[in-house]
């Protein structure tokens, strides 16, 4: 993996970690059939944290992040998001999902709706926002991700990078308090990676709580306040990025870093 240079100053004035807890995971376990994917996960995320989750393929990063908005069900332990515990109660699940934004590797825009409709759909139907207000808000976020002029096109007419930025805008339209990213840039060409990362950096600068599975170590170094390393369904190591990259403690981490950074 390359380390993409981030060529701008990052404004850290609003990147503050508060004491308030955004996500709390206690002793969480998950199995796919007999396969133990997530093993005894304990994690506390405070509001304003920017966490990068790294690890080899198949280590359970996606599964972990998808458990946080109940796209996957966990079998043991406790997940509390924004003060609401994730149980099989559909009310809680829908509530949490509308508070937590998620971006996927393959964007998953709705191809039968225009960009604007993609962005207004959930606010109108889930939040019952009036259509006009929802459209204004959508345009605001589309401007923020720098594609307001594409609002009336369909997703199929946009480049990958543009589609991913629309996907981010679509999540933001729900005014989420937490954003989850599952390898948002790994389906993209290098120039497009940069535009998406820029958008994510801007989000971080506004103080958004972010959990991000990514192989972009430049982003991890400069934006994250904590890096979590997973292997075989376990959290093997977590640390501040500086320490994590320069002074990895566990052997697995060292091995992984030497592979990914090509040392």
């Amino acid at each position, binding site marked *: 993996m390359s380390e993409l240079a981030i060529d701008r100053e990052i404004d850290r004035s609003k990147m503050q970690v508060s004491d308030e807890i955004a996500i709390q995971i206690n002793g969480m376990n998950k199995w796919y059939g007999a396969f133990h994917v997530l093993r005894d996960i304990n994690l506390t995320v405070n509001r304003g944290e920017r966490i990068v989750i790294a690890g080899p393929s198949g280590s359970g990063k996606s599964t972990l992040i998808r458990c946080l908005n109940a796209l996957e069900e966990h079998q043991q332990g406790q997940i509390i998001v924004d003060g609401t515990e994730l149980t099989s109660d559909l009310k809680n699940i829908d509530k949490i999902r509308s508070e937590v934004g998620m971006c996927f590797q393959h964007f998953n*825009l709705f191809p039968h709706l225009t960009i604007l409709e993609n962005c207004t*759909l959930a606010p109108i139907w889930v939040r019952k926002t009036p259509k006009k207000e929802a459209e204004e808000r959508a345009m605001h976020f589309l401007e923020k991700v720098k594609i307001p002029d594409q609002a009336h096109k369909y997703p199929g007419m946009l480049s990958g990078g543009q589609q991913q930025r629309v996907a981010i805008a679509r999540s933001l339209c729900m005014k989420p308090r937490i954003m989850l990213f599952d390898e948002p840039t790994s389906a993209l060409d290098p120039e497009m990676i940069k535009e998406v990362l820029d958008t994510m950096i801007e989000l971080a600068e506004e103080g958004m709580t972010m959990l991000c599975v990514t192989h972009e170590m430049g982003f991890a170094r400069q934006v994250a306040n904590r890096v979590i390393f997973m292997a075989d369904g376990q959290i093997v190591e977590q640390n501040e990025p500086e320490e994590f990259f320069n002074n990895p403690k566990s052997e697995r981490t060292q091995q992984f870093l030497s592979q990914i950074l090509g040392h």
Partner: protein
Amino acid sequence: MSEQNSVAFVATESIPPSPPPSSQVGAVKWLRENLFSNWQSTLLTVVSLLLIFQILSTLLPWVLNGVWTTSSLSECRDVLQGKFGACFSVLTERWNQLLFGFKYPSDQYWRPTLAFVFLLIAAAPVLFFDLPRKMLAFTVAYPFVAFWLIWGGTLMAPIVAFLGCAAAAYVFSAYGKTNFALGFIGAIAAALVVWSVGAVLIPEGANDSAILEHVPSRDLGGFMLNMMLGVTCVSLSIPLGIALALGRQSNMPLIKGLCVVFIEFVRGVPLITLLFVASVMLSYFFPPDATVDLFLRVVIMMTLFSAAYVAEVIRGGLAALPKGQYEAADSLGLDYPQAMRLIILPQALKISIPGIVNVAVGLFKDTTLVSVISLFDLVGMIRGPILGGSAEWNGVYWELWGFAAVLFFVVCYGISQYSQWLERRLATDHR
């Protein structure tokens, strides 16, 4: 090499556009490219032209010499005097029978005709969704209006039918949000309660003093019957098919099992068997004194039959959608009905259009099977009263069956053209 191939080059003048050479445009080019490009295609062209000429040289005189105004086949023969020509008089003379059957009161033909005109208005906003949404109010009222127009009788019947549906809709919208199954079953129960109370309330003999003379189902017939069966069954089987397809995907084992068994059973049985069941055996399932209308029984069977096929077509559409669409809908906090209605079904149905149209066209043509259980639809009319039952028209096969073919072709071709338009209209993914 020469200087032209040197790396640096700057255009010194702009080249103006000019028309293409004359051999590249017009009819001559088209003919040469498409019909006479080599000797094989030239041969094929010539053979095809000969064949078309042969067919037309038989068909055209037959149609053009056609006799339209006589009152029996023998009179046709007299008029034609040995010339080769059709006897279309049967169509003009039996026009009303072909369209409405032979028992529908002839002074009431305006009623089904009006119902047909209303059908066009009611179907328009469903088929062409750019039309104002307010027109849907008429579409909702249409089934009850058409029911009253065609069957006549007491006004209470369509009103009770409407109230039952309204009660079902109310119950579903009140409880369906929180618990889909509860809302669904409650809705059916509400409708049944309203209908049975209504049936008790309608006084005996209310049909005798009605504004519109009551016409029993047995007296319906002709192409009208085909249209009624086709329109009713297609429009009922699509929602039912969607429900079955979603049920088959359900993670509740009971619902899933029921849907699978139903679909597999119905698909494994010929329609004609189901129709016989409808005509004779279905009465065993109802209380002995309840006479469930034959038309209703046929509608139920045909709807169930095509719903199973529609369900399988839609299941294909659902399976073709990437999992990411479900996940994106979930992650935005849409609940199941919203995700289905706004995200999944629009895309799955779009994929399924050709398949659904296939089922619809097939079903429409299969409505002629009711002639086997002695209902006099268009085919039943031609086979029975007109060809078999009348001395005047015994033997005018080509004209009658040709007419039936043309009627069905017009409708089916219309459906297929509509579906192609719809596919183009909905094409938004520019992959």
